[in-house]
């Protein structure tokens, strides 16, 4: 065997041993075997995840490792964990330092975190003790999380109750505001009428005076005294009339008391409308909030525009509502073409009257009851049929909304195709529209009792 081969063997063995030594050094260096160190102890009630070799950090800096765990001699005792810490960090480990068992994330291994002490406290001696803070276990966190969720659920329930009460109060306030505005309106009307009467009376008085004047003029000089007296009376009457006019101006002119009152009333009305609009917006937002969606759905708040046909059909079976329908046939309501001559559907000239008559049957019920204009069509193909039904429903809906000024969100158009089980037609189909009012069953009973 030649020298080169022997050299290779030597290189192989020495290189391998060096590499092996590098591994040993890396492990030893981490375990502080090649640097100065000191030992400290800390006691814990629970040492979950801690073992010999568990790393020790001082304020996040790698500082050493656990070198021993002493088991307590009796139940209830505390485990004493002995740690080896880098000597260069000794100045930070004081008598008031604390040792806590922490975990590197959910999957990470446990480590011991030493909190640097304060400058006032003395250094911990080699082999000295620190206060230990027990580990937080996942099971404890789960129990705590469950308790938190329970409290949150209770809080939500309470909020729901308060919200219900708030909505009730808001309703009362709106009712009271309406009543107040109605009373103010009545008062203003009465004042206006009184002013008008005053003006009429003044005009009558002036006419009478003019008559007297003409009579006096006809009597010529014979009655000059009477004339003078009459002129004096006229002056007095004129003064009275001017007083009356001033009074009227005070009541009805620009900047008058009535005007200011009306301005105040208008301002109050505008604010009330803004508040109600905000409340409506917030309520709509709440209805869409997943936390409150169930709350509103349970109380019958539906967004008619978002209902699908099947959801709408299911709504018909809701016992909280009584469904009242008025059927209108298509041939009496609609006609093709019109002025545009583009073949689009439009209402006949007399359709408005028919719709108004049909609505007349429903006006006796509360205005807030949801009104759905159901569109039906018996066209053969699905697409054109639904399109026709939708167009019919929308035309009638627009007329109703325009004519009767129904509350926003309480009126909708719903194309339903051809199937109409309750229709007057015997085949269970309908060609036209149906005005469908959803009256709360409780309210319906109240209305019937009133009648």
């Amino acid at each position: 065997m030649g020298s080169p081969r022997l050299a290779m063997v030597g290189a192989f063995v020495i290189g391998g041993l060096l590499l092996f030594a590098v591994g040993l050094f890396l492990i030893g260096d981490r375990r502080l075997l090649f640097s100065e160190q000191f030992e400290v102890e800390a006691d814990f009630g629970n040492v979950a995840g801690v073992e010999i070799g568990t790393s020790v950090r001082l304020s996040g800096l790698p500082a050493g490792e656990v070198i021993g765990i002493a088991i307590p001699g009796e139940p209830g005792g505390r485990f004493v964990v002995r740690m080896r810490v880098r000597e260069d960090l000794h100045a930070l480990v004081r008598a008031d330092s604390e040792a806590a068992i922490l975990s590197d994330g959910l999957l990470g291994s446990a480590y011991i975190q030493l909190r640097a002490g304060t400058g006032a406290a003395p250094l911990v001696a080699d082999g000295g003790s620190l206060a230990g803070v027990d580990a937080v276990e996942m099971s404890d966190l789960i129990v705590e999380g469950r308790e938190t969720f329970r409290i949150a659920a209770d809080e939500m329930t309470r909020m729901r109750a308060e919200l219900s009460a708030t909505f009730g109060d808001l309703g009362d306030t709106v009712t009271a505001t309406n009543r107040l505005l109605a009373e103010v309106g009545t008062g203003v009307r009465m004042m206006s009428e009184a002013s008008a009467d005053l003006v009429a009376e003044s005009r009558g008085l002036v006419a009478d005076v003019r008559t007297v004047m003409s009579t006096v003029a006809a009597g010529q000089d014979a009655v000059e005294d009477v004339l003078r007296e009459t002129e004096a009376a006229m002056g007095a009457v004129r003064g009275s009339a001017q007083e009356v006019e001033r009074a009227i101006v005070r009541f009805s002119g620009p900047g008058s008391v009535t005007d200011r009152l009306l301005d105040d009333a208008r301002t109050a009305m505008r604010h009330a409308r803004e508040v109600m609009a905000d409340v409506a917006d917030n309520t709509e937002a709440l209805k869409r909030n997943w936390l409150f969606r169930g709350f509103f759905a349970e109380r019958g708040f539906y967004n008619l525009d978002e209902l699908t046909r099947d959801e709408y059909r299911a709504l018909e079976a809701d016992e909280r509502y009584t469904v009242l329908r008025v059927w209108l046939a298509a041939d009496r309501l609609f006609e093709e073409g019109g002025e545009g001559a583009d073949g689009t559907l439009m209402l006949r000239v007399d359709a408005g009257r028919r719709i108004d008559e049909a609505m007349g049957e429903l006006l006796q019920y509360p205005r807030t009851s949801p009104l759905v204009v159901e569109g039906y069509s018996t066209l053969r193909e699905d697409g054109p049929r639904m399109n026709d039904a939708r167009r019919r429903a929308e035309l009638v809906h627009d007329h109703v909304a325009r004519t009767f000024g129904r509350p926003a969100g309480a009126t909708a158009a719903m194309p339903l195709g051809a199937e109409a089980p309750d229709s007057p037609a015997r085949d269970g189909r309908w060609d036209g529209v149906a005005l469908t009012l959803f009256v709360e069953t409780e309210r319906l009973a109240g209305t019937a009792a009133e009648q």
Partner: protein
Amino acid sequence: MRGFVRTVIVPWLAQGGRVVVFAGRALREMFRPPFEVRETARQVYEVGWRSLPLIAAAGYAVGIVMSMHTRASLERFGAEALIPAALALALVRETGPLVVGLLVSGRVGAGIGAELGAMKVTEQIDALEAVAVDSFKFLVVTRVAACMLAMPILTVVMNFTGIVGGWTAESAVSGMGFESYFRAAFSLVQFTDYLPGTLKTMVFGFIIAVTASYLGVHASGGTQGVGQAATRSVVTASVLMIATNVVLVRLIFFVFPETAE
């Protein structure tokens, strides 16, 4: 049944007994002079030095593959920081020693079996005996010693090249620096992982060399017998090594309980 026992079981057990005696003799002769240093060095060159490229390339590739697999698993839990440590632990504890054992078994075991088998069937071993050379000490003990010496070194090379391969894969993904990767890799490795994992490959080397040498020096039937010896050396050594590994792991857990945690 009795015939099966007499014709199959008894000869199989006898063969096992002969192998154990052969291994015991090899172990005993290893510590008795004269020591065939030059022949041992030549075998270290054959077994160790010439296996280095294979081991280094395999280790590098294994490191890359393991890093990719480890990343795919750990990043689901947001534990990418543990990738170097997990890779190093797996390599040092088990993957490195076992892969080195299988590679050396394939490359060296077959070589020893074929070489000694050829010497046997061409009566070169008898010729050595005729010139008063202890053929067992010269041919078998030197190979066993060389394997036992080379295996831990090859394992260390496999572990380090594996970590370098892991760093290559990791730096391509996250741009991690070599030094920080290396320190992170050894952050969880303990002496009780590193030393038993590395030194147990001496046992693997012993098994490979003894099995291949036994089958080689007992080869018969010309070139066909040489081929059989080579093939059986690889298969038997690999199976024995894997089976022994199970026992060794259990033994390591028993001696160093913290490695089982």
